[in-house]
C-alpha cells in the first residue's frame, strides 16, 4: 500500500508515493498537480535519508570538560534542558531563553514552537531561519499588497504568461520540476527573462538573460519603470483604480535613464531597453523574485521596486500575470505564518496588535497581557547570545546555524558562549556538534504534518514508516518541555489535533487555516489558504488598493575596494539542499564539496585553472576550494555554493532595515591562488 506524501526538501513540495514500511521506495504520484510525477534527484533519493548509520537514536549530552558524548534517557535529557532553562530565566528573566526554528518544520511544529515560547517559557526571543530566506519578499508583499503569500496564484499559471521575468532565481537547479513550466510557456510562444549575475541552467532556458552586478537588481527595476513611463506603457486606468502612491513612484524613476542604469548595474543600456520593450508590448507579464534579489541589505526595497513594475503595467491580479516570490524552504510559507517569527502570532497576525493578542490568548487559555511582545530577528538574536543583555540558553529545531548563518565564525562563537545549547536533529549536524544536549527526533516519512508550499497550498506529509526506537517527534519534545516547565496550557502531540488548534488560532487572521482539515487536503490535492488566486478584485489593505512605494537604489553594504576587489555571491547546487545536513549524508547524491566559480578573465589575472585551489577571503573570514573556471559568471564576481562550512564565514551580516534579512548574496572579496 503506497502512502501519498511530499518531498522533504524545497518549497515545491512535490507529491510522491512511498512504498515499503522498512526501507521506503519513492515512486511518482502523477495526479498531484504541482509536479505531475516529476521529481529531481533529491526527491528520488529522499528515502536514502532514512536509517543511515549516522542517525542519532538516543538523547546525547556532552561533557564540556572532555567534549565526550554520552547517551542518556529522554527523562534525563529533558530534565537537564528544563533545569538549564530555569537557571537561565532565573538569572536573566524570561528572555534568558531563546528558540531558533526553521522553515522546514511543519505548520504544526512551527505553531507549537511559538506557543512554547510565548506561553510555557514566556520569552519573546524566538525567530527562525526563514528570516534568511523569504523575509524581504514577505515584508515587501505586506507593505505593497497588505498580505504576503509567496505566489498569489498556482505555479502552473506561469505557463500562461507572455513574458516571465525571473529575478535572482535559478529554479532549474533549485526546484527542477518547476522548470517544466518555462518550457511549456515558451512552446506557447511566451518568453522567459532571467536576471542573474550567473548564466545558470535557468538562464540557459531563457530568451533574454541580463547579468547585473550583484546587489543592483533594484536599479534595474527603476530603469525599466523609467522606460515604461517614458514610452507610455503604464496602465493609467489600473493605477488610478487599484493603487495609491503612483505619482511619487513615477517621478522617482525620472532619474533612472538607461545609461545611468548601465553604469550602476553593469548591464548594457540596450539590454535594459530590450527588456522594457518586451514588457511594454505584452498583455501578460509576470515577475517572480527569489533569493538572488531578496537576500540583500536592500532586499525588501528591491522587491518593492519589482512589484512597482508589475503594478505599473496593471498586471497584479490578472491571470497569468502579476508578481510572486519563489519561496525557498520546504515550509517557507507556512513557517512564517504561525508564530515562530519574532513579531508574529498564528495566522500571520502581528504580535503587537491588541486584537490579535486577545484572540490567540483566548485560544491558548491565557491572559493577553501574559504574552510577550516582539523579540529579536534571527541574526540579531544569534548576535545577542551569551552577551550581558542576551539569552544564555537556546533551543534549536530544524536549523543548522553553524553552516547557514552569515558571518558564521562570529555566530559560532556566540553559540559557544551559551550556558546551554539544545539541538533537536536527526544527525550530528555541525550545530548539534556544539550542543550540550542533542535530542534525536523523527524525520519526514516517520511523522505526519502539513506544509504550505510556495503557492500557499497546504499539503499533507503522511507518516509512511515507523521511526527507529529511541527518537521522538518535535511535538513530543515541545510537549515534554512545556510539561516540565509546569505550563497549564495544553500541548497536544497528535499532529491533526495540533492542526485543528492552529486553525482556531489562525481564524480571522491574514492566513486563515480554520476551514482546512486533513481530510480536505487529502481530497483536494492540497488546499490554498485565502483562495487559489488572490488580488483579482482587491488588495488586502483596508481601502482595497495596492500601495506603490518609491524606493531608491542604495547598493550593497560592502563595495569592492583595493583589498577586496571582487563581488562574492553564494547559492545552491542541484544535488544539495541548504546546509547539506541531509543531502550530504545521502549516498546516492554526489557530494563534490564546495568550489569557487570564476570567469576566465579573472582566472587569467590570478593564474588559476580549473581544479586548482583558490582562497577566497572577506573582512570576516576565508575559505579554500577548487576553482571552476566558467564563462557563465560575471568577470568581476565569484560564486561559492553555501551547502558546506566555509561560504558563510565569508558572507556579510549587514541587515535589511525592514526585513532584517542579512546580505548573503553579495560582499567584497579577494581571490588568490592558494
Amino acid at each position, binding site marked *: 500500500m503506497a502512502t501519498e506524501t511530499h518531498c522533504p526538501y524545497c518549497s515545491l513540495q512535490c507529491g510522491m508515493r512511498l512504498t515499503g514500511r522498512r526501507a521506503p521506495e519513492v515512486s511518482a504520484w502523477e495526479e498531484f498537480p504541482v509536479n505531475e510525477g516529476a521529481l529531481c534527484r533529491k526527491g528520488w533519493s529522499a528515502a536514502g535519508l532514512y536509517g543511515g548509520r549516522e542517525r542519532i537514536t538516543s538523547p546525547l549530552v556532552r561533557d564540556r570538560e572532555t567534549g565526550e558524548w554520552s547517551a542518556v534517557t529522554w527523562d534525563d535529557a529533558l530534565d537537564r534542558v528544563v533545569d538549564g532553562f530555569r537557571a537561565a530565566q532565573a538569572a536573566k528573566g524570561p528572555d534568558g531563553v531563546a528558540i531558533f526554528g526553521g522553515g522546514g518544520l511543519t505548520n504544526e511544529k512551527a505553531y507549537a514552537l511559538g506557543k512554547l515560547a510565548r506561553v510555557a517559557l514566556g520569552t519573546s526571543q524566538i525567530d527562525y531561519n526563514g528570516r534568511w530566506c523569504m523575509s524581504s519578499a514577505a515584508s515587501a508583499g505586506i507593505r505593497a499588497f497588505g498580505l504576503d503569500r509567496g505566489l498569489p496564484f498556482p505555479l502552473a499559471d506561469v505557463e500562461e504568461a507572455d513574458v516571465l521575468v525571473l529575478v535572482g532565481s535559478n529554479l532549474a537547479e533549485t526546484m*527542477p520540476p518547476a*522548470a517544466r513550466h518555462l518550457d511549456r510557456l515558451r512552446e506557447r510562444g511566451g518568453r522567459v527573462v532571467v536576471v542573474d549575475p550567473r548564466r545558470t541552467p535557468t538562464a540557459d532556458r531563457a530568451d533574454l538573460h541580463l547579468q547585473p552586478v550583484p546587489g543592483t537588481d533594484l536599479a534595474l527595476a527603476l530603469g525599466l519603470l523609467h522606460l515604461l513611463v517614458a514610452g507610455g506603457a503604464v496602465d493609467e486606468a489600473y493605477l488610478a483604480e487599484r493603487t495609491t502612491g503612483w505619482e511619487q513612484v513615477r517621478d522617482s524613476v525620472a532619474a533612472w535613464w538607461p545609461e545611468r542604469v548601465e553604469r550602476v548595474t553593469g548591464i548594457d543600456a540596450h539590454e535594459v531597453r530590450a527588456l522594457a520593450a518586451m514588457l511594454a508590448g505584452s498583455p501578460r507579464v509576470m515577475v517572480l523574485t527569489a533569493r538572488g534579489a531578496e537576500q540583500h541589505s536592500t532586499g525588501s526595497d528591491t522587491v518593492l521596486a519589482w512589484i512597482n513594475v508589475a503594478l505599473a503595467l496593471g498586471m497584479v491580479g490578472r491571470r497569468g500575470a502579476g508578481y510572486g516570490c519563489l519561496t525557498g524552504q520546504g515550509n517557507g510559507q507556512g513557517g512564517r505564518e504561525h508564530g515562530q517569527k519574532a513579531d508574529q502570532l498564528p495566522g500571520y497576525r502581528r504580535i503587537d496588535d491588541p486584537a490579535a493578542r486577545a484572540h490567540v490568548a483566548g485560544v491558548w487559555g491565557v491572559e493577553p497581557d501574559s504574552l510577550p511582545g516582539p523579540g529579536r530577528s534571527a541574526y540579531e538574536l544569534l548576535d545577542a547570545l551569551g552577551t550581558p543583555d542576551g539569552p544564555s540558553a537556546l533551543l534549536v529545531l530544524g536549523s543548522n546555524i553553524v553552516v547557514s548563518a552569515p558571518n558564521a565564525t562570529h555566530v559560532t562563537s556566540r553559540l559557544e558562549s551559551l550556558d546551554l545549547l539544545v539541538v533537536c536533529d536527526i544527525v550530528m549536524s555541525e550545530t548539534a556538534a556544539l550542543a550540550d544536549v542533542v535530542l534525536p527526533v523523527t524525520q519526514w516519512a516517520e511523522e505526519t504534518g502539513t506544509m504550505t508550499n510556495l503557492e500557499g497550498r497546504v499539503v499533507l506529509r503522511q507518516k509512511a514508516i515507523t521511526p527507529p526506537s529511541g527518537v521522538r517527534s518535535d511535538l513530543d519534545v515541545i510537549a515534554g518541555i512545556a510539561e516540565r516547565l509546569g505550563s497549564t496550557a495544553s500541548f497536544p502531540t497528535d499532529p491533526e489535533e495540533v492542526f485543528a488548534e492552529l486553525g482556531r488560532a489562525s481564524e480571522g487572521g491574514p492566513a486563515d487555516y480554520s476551514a482546512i482539515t486533513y481530510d480536505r487536503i487529502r481530497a483536494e490535492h492540497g488546499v490554498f489558504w485565502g483562495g487559489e488566486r488572490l488580488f483579482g478584485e482587491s488588495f488586502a489593505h483596508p481601502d482595497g488598493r495596492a500601495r506603490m512605494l518609491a524606493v531608491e537604489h542604495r547598493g550593497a553594504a560592502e563595495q569592492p575596494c583595493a583589498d577586496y576587489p571582487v563581488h562574492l555571491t553564494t547559492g545552491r547546487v542541484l544535488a544539495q539542499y541548504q546546509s547539506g545536513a541531509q543531502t550530504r549524508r545521502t549516498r546516492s547524491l554526489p557530494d563534490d564539496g564546495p568550489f569557487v566559480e570564476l570567469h576566465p578573465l579573472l582566472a587569467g589575472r590570478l593564474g588559476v585553472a580549473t581544479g586548482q585551489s583558490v582562497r577566497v577571503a572577506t573582512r570576516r573570514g576565508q575559505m579554500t576550494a577548487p576553482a571552476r573556471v566558467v564563462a557563465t559568471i560575471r568577470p*568581476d564576481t565569484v560564486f561559492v555554493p553555501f551547502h558546506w562550512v566555509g561560504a558563510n564565514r565569508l558572507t556579510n551580516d549587514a541587515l535589511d532595515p525592514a526585513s532584517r534579512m542579512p546580505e548573503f548574496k553579495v560582499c567584497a572579496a579577494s581571490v588568490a591562488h592558494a
Partner: protein
Amino acid sequence: MPERILVVGGGMAAVRLAEHLADDDRFAVTVLADEPHAPYNRILLSAVLEGTHAPSALTLRSEAWFADHGIELRLGARVLEIDREAREVVLVDGERLAFDRLVLACGSIPTLPPIRGLVRRDGTLHPKVHAFRSLADCRRLDEALTPGTRAVVVGGGLLGLQVARALSVRGLQTEVVEGADHLLASQVGPGAGRVLARDLRRLGTEVYTGARAVRLTDDGLQLDNGYVLPTDLVVLTAGGRPSTALARRAGLMVARGVVVDSTLTSVTDDRIHAIGDCAEHRRRTTGFVPPAWEQAEVLARVLRGEDAAYDGRRSVARLRATGLEVAVLGDPEHAEGEIVEMSNPIVGSHRRLVVHGGRIVAAALVGDLSRVGLITQLYDRGTLLGPDEPGQLLLPEAADAPTPLPDEAEVCACAGVSAGEIRACGTVGECVDRTRATTGCGGCADVVRRLVGSSPTPVAVG
C-alpha cells in the same frame, strides 16, 4: 532654529541636494528655481524631442514632493543679486531672502557662437534659431518641426549629436556643422570621430567638420568655406558656459566657474557653495550630471557637518541617441597611460582603453559598446587588471564551443544520468524507466532523444 539654506537654481544638481536634505529639521531649505515648472530631468530633453520619451514623464520631484518633505520650492524665482554682507539674496521683484548658507546651482547658459545674423537688432534671436537647454527650448523647437523642415545643428558634441539624431528620427533633413576637425572633439580622437561621422551619414545626416558657420541669411547658414546650407532651423548646441554672473557681481572668485574647494565651498566666502555646471573645482568645470550629483551628495554631508570631500576623478559620458553608440570614460585623449586600441572601420567601430598601472583610467568606445557595462565597472572601481585583460576586453567574447559528450558526461542533472547510460538504452521510454532521465526539470529531453541508442561518438550540443 534651523539653518536657512537657499539654493539658487532648480536643475539636476539642486534637486539632488534637496533630496539629500529632505526631512531634516536641522535645515530650512528653499529652492529658487527660475523656470516655471517643477524640476525636471534635463538630459532627457533630446529623447523628448526624438519622441521616445513622454514629455509628461520628465518631472524629477513634484511640487507636492517638496511640500511633503519640508522644502520650500519657489518656481519662477529669479535672483538678481547676492548681498553677502547682509546674507541675503535679492529677487528680481525686489524681495529679499535671508540665508545662513547659500548654494549656487545655477547651471550653465548656452554659448552663442559668433554667427552674424543670429541675433537681431532688437537683441532677440532670429526666429529660425533655437537653443536647446531648457524644457521651453525643447517645446519651442518641437513646435517648429513640420514635415519637410530642414535643420542645421551647430555643434558636433554630445548634445549636438543627440539633437541631430532626434531631428533625423523625426523625419527632418538634418546637417551638423562642427568647427573642430572631427566630431566629439573634446572627448575622442580623430579616428573615433571619423567613425561617428560615417555612422551619421549612413543614417542620413550630412556632417561638416572643420567648418564654422559664419552668417545666417535668408538663403541659409553660410560656412567659412563658402558653402551655404539652406535651412529652416538652426539649433545651437555648441556648448555652454557656467552661469557665474551672480557670483561675479557678488565678488566671489570666479574663473571659468565659481571656484570651490573640495567641500564645494567658495574660496572667497565660506557661507557660499557651488555645485553642478556653475562650479569649478581644481580648475575643472564638468557639464555632466553624474559629477553634479556627486557634488550634491558631498555638499549635503558637508552641510550636515560630516567629513566629506569631492575628488571628481571619474566621469562617464554616454551618448543617448538612436543608432549612435558612444561611451566616453574619463578623458581618453589626455589621460596618462598605455593605449590599447581596436579600430575596425569596416564595421564602424573604434575603441580605446587607456591603462595606467594595470587600471583602466579612460576609455572611448564608439560604434561597438559590447561589454560597456563591464568596462565601466572596472573603470569606476579601479580594478587592477592582468596584462592580457585590456586586450581581451576588446575582443569578441568567445562563443561557447559545442561540447562533445563523452560517455561519462552528465546529461540529466536531475537524476544524475550520464551520456553512456542513455546511449545504452534502446528507446526514450526505456531510458526513462531505467534511469529517470528527463523526469525532473525536463531540460535534457532533446539531448536524450538524440543520444538514445546512438554510438558513442560525441554529440554536439549547445
